C-alpha cells in the first residue's frame, strides 16, 4: 500500500496541467456560459460543447481509457486519475460521454471491423455526436421490458417505437438503440443493439423541458425507420449482454470526485462571502459542520474510488463497486447543490435561465451577486442524478443481491 504519487506521476501532472492551462479557455465554452446562451444558435452551442473535445483530439488525448490501437492513450490508471483531477480543477467542459465512454468500448468489444473503423473514427474526431436510445415510457428501471420493435425486412430493419430521456438528442447525428427483435423467452433474450442514423426519415425528436428550465432531454419517436442490417452490433438478440457491458462502463468517472471537490471549494468561497449576522456564513458553526461532514464523506468516496481503480489496474474487472460509486457520488453532488442553495439565502429565488432570458430579455440577468446565478436551477437539476443511470434504489438492489447475496 502506498498513497503517494511517484516522481513520474508528478511530472505527468505538471505536463497535463500546463497543457490544460495553455489550451483550455472558458471563453469559447458557450454551453457553460449562460449570458451568451440566449444569443447563440443550436449549431454554435454544439460547436462550443465540442471545442474542448476537438482540442484533445488533435493532441491525441481524447480517449485515455481506450486501447492504444484504437486511438486510446498509453496512460496508467493513476495517470488517468490525475488527468480527470486536473480537468476538474481547471473546470474544463465535460466531454459528452455517449460516444467516448459508452459506445466506444462496446464497439471495441463487440463491433465488426467495418464498425470499428467508421464508428470509432467519428467518435474520436467528434464528427459524430451519439445519443443513447435506452429508456422508454414503460421501460425505465425495468429496462428489459422495452418495446421499441425492429422487424427484419430484407437487408433492413424497420424500427417502430418511442424512446424517452434521450440526453442531447437534439444535437445527435446517431443513436445507439436497444430494440426488441424477439418476443420469445425472457424479455432480456429478445433485445438487439442497433446504430441508427438520426437523419433517417421517420425520426422525430421532441424536447422535454425539465424543472430547472433546461432542455437537455428529449423524446425520440421512431416510425417505420429503415436501418441497414449492417448497423446491428454483435448478434441479433444479444443486445442485453451489450447493454449490461455498456452500463458497467458508464461508471467511469461516475463518482465525480474531482468535480465535487471543486464544487465544495466553490461552496466554501460562497460561504465565506455570504454574511450571517455580520460574520461570514462559513463561521456559522452549524453550516460549517455540514460542509465539513460533506468533505469527509467525499474523502471516503475518493479512497473507495481509488481502491476500485487500483483493483482494475491489477486486471480485476469492475464489480458492484460501481454501484457504490454511483450512489455515494450522486448523493454527494446533490448535497453540495443543496448546501450551495442554502448558502445564498434570499437570492435562492431569482429565476435566471436561458429560457427566461430568451422570453423576458437580458434585463433578467445579474440579479444578486454573481455566485448566486443558477444555484437554485442547479439544485433542482441535480435531483435527476439519483434517478438516471439506474436509480439509486436499483443500485441498492444490485448491491443487496450481488454482494450481500440477499
Amino acid at each position, binding site marked *: 500500500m502506498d498513497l503517494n504519487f511517484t516522481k513520474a506521476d508528478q511530472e505527468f501532472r505538471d505536463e497535463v496541467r500546463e497543457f490544460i492551462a495553455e489550451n483550455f479557455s472558458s471563453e469559447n465554452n458557450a454551453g457553460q456560459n449562460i449570458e451568451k446562451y440566449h444569443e447563440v444558435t443550436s449549431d454554435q452551442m454544439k460547436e462550443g460543447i465540442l471545442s474542448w473535445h476537438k482540442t484533445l483530439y488533435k493532441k491525441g488525448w481524447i480517449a485515455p481509457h481506450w486501447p492504444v490501437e484504437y486511438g486510446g492513450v498509453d496512460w496508467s490508471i493513476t495517470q488517468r486519475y490525475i488527468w480527470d483531477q486536473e480537468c476538474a480543477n481547471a473546470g474544463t467542459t465535460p466531454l459528452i460521454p455517449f460516444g467516448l465512454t459508452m459506445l466506444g468500448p462496446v464497439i471495441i468489444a463487440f463491433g465488426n471491423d467495418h464498425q470499428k473503423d467508421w464508428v470509432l473514427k467519428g467518435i474520436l474526431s467528434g464528427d459524430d455526436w451519439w445519443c443513447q436510445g435506452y*429508456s422508454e415510457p*414503460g421501460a*425505465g*428501471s*425495468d429496462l428489459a*421490458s422495452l418495446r421499441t420493435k425492429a422487424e427484419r425486412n430484407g437487408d433492413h430493419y424497420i424500427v417502430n417505437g418511442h424512446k*424517452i*430521456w434521450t440526453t442531447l438528442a437534439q444535437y445527435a447525428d446517431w443513436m445507439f438503440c436497444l430494440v426488441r427483435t424477439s418476443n420469445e423467452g425472457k424479455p432480456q433474450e429478445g433485445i438487439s443493439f442497433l446504430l441508427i442514423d438520426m437523419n433517417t426519415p421517420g425520426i422525430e425528436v421532441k424536447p*422535454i*423541458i*425539465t*424543472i430547472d*428550465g433546461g432542455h437537455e*432531454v428529449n423524446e425520440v419517436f421512431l416510425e417505420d425507420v429503415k436501418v441497414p442490417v449492417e448497423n446491428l452490433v454483435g448478434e441479433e438478440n444479444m443486445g442485453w449482454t451489450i447493454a449490461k457491458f455498456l452500463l458497467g462502463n458508464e461508471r467511469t468517472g461516475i463518482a465525480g470526485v474531482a468535480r465535487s471537490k471543486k464544487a465544495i471549494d466553490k461552496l466554501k468561497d460562497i460561504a465565506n462571502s*455570504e*454574511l*450571517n*449576522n*455580520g460574520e461570514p*456564513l462559513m463561521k*456559522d458553526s*452549524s*453550516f460549517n459542520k455540514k460542509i465539513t461532514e460533506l468533505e469527509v464523506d467525499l474523502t471516503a468516496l475518493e479512497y473507495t474510488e481509488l481502491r476500485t481503480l487500483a483493483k482494475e489496474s491489477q486486471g480485476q474487472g469492475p464489480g458492484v463497486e460501481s454501484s457504490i460509486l454511483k450512489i455515494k457520488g450522486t448523493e454527494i453532488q446533490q448535497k453540495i447543490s*443543496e448546501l450551495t*442553495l*442554502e448558502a445564498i*439565502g*434570499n*437570492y*435562492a*429565488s*431569482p*429565476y*435566471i435561465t436561458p429560457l*427566461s432570458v430568451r*422570453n*423576458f430579455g437580458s*434585463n*433578467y440577468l445579474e*440579479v*444578486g*451577486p454573481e455566485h448566486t446565478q443558477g444555484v*437554485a*436551477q442547479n*439544485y*433542482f437539476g441535480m*435531483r*435527476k442524478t*439519483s*434517478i*438516471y443511470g439506474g*436509480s439509486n*434504489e436499483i443500485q*441498492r438492489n444490485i448491491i443487496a443481491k450481488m454482494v450481500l447475496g440477499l
Partner: protein
Amino acid sequence: MDFSFSEEQTLLRNTIQSFIQDNYDFDKRREIIQSEEGMSKDNWSQLAELGLLGVPFSENDGGLNFGSVETMIVAEEFGKGLVVEPYIQTVVTCGGFLRRASESQRQEHLPSLISGDEIWAFAYAEPQGRFNLADIKVSVSKKGDDYTLNGDKCVVSGAPWAQKLIVSARTSGDQSDKKGISLFIVDKASDGVSTRDYKTVDGSMASEVSFENVKLDGSSLIGEEGDSYALIELVADETIAALCAEAIGAMSVLNETTVEYCKTRKQFGQPIGKFQVLQHRMVDMFMQYEQSVSMTYMVNLKLEEEDVERSKAASGAKVQICNAAKFIGQSAVQLHGGMGMTDELNVGHYFKRLSMIETQLGNADHHLKKYSLAS
C-alpha cells in the same frame, strides 16, 4: 382541547376550494405565470369579491374580523392550488402591519387593499442581512416632520405587482441594533424609488428595490419611530404561520400525487408501490406531513401568546416545515422518476414552491438557533 373546524370555517374552506377548482387548474396557472404580468388581476378581483382580502381586518376597518385559523385555512388551500397571487404578502404581512397602524392610516389604506385595488409588499431583506430582520442598512434621515429614505432592499416578494411598499429602515443605531428600526409606507410611484423586477423560481415575482432620497412625511411612519422591531418580529411570525399553512397544503398534494403514481406506475410486472423500499419512503413522507400539520396548528393557535412563547412556536414550526418541505419535495420527485423532473408535471412546481418556503423568513438553521436562544 379541540382541533376541529367550525361550520363557518369549513364553509370558508369550501369557498376557496371551489375558487381554485374554477380558476386555478394547472394549465391556467401555467398561463398566468408565463404571462408578462405574472399574476391574474382578474383572480385578485375575485378574491376581493369573495371577501378574502379582508380576512384578518376588523369589521370597523371593513374586514371579516377572522382570526389566525381562518388565515391558516386560506393559506393551506392556496398552497394546494399553488396560487401565485400575493395574498400572504399583501393581506397577512402588510395587512398585519396596517391593522396595527393608526386610525387615520387604516382609513387611508385599508379600503383600497380590501377592495383589491392596491397590492402591497414588505421590503425587509437586504443583501448583507441574510435572515436577520434587524440587519438593516437602509437609512432614514429626519428634518422637521419629514423623512428622507436611502438604500437598497433585495428580493422583495410580490413587489412588481405592488403599488405600496412597507419598508423597514434605520432611523438610529448601528447596523444590527434592534433599537432604531422604523417602518414606513412608501408609494412605489414616488420619486427616487426604482425597481428591478424579475420572475422567481417558484413562479412568482420579486424586485430589487432602491431608494434614492425618497421624501416621506410623518403620515407614512407606522408605529413609534425607532421602536418597530418587536412589531416586525410579530408580523414575521404571523407570516411564518401562514407560510407553514401554505406548505402543508402543497405537501398534501405532493403526497397524494406520489401515492397515486406509485399505485399506477408498473415496472417489473407490478405497481412500484408494492416495493417495500418505496412504501417506507412514502410512509416517512406521510409522517413528515402529519408532524407539519401539527406544528402548523400549534403556531397558528399560539400567535396571540406573549413574545417569547409565540416566537418559539413560530421558529419550531418553521424548522419542522423546512425539513419536511425538503424531504417531501425531494422524495416526490425521486418516486416519480424521470417524470418528476419534467416541467410538464405539477410535481416539480410544488417541489420548487416548497424549496422557496424553506428560505422565506429564515431557513431551518436560522430558526433552530432562534428557538434554542429563546428557550
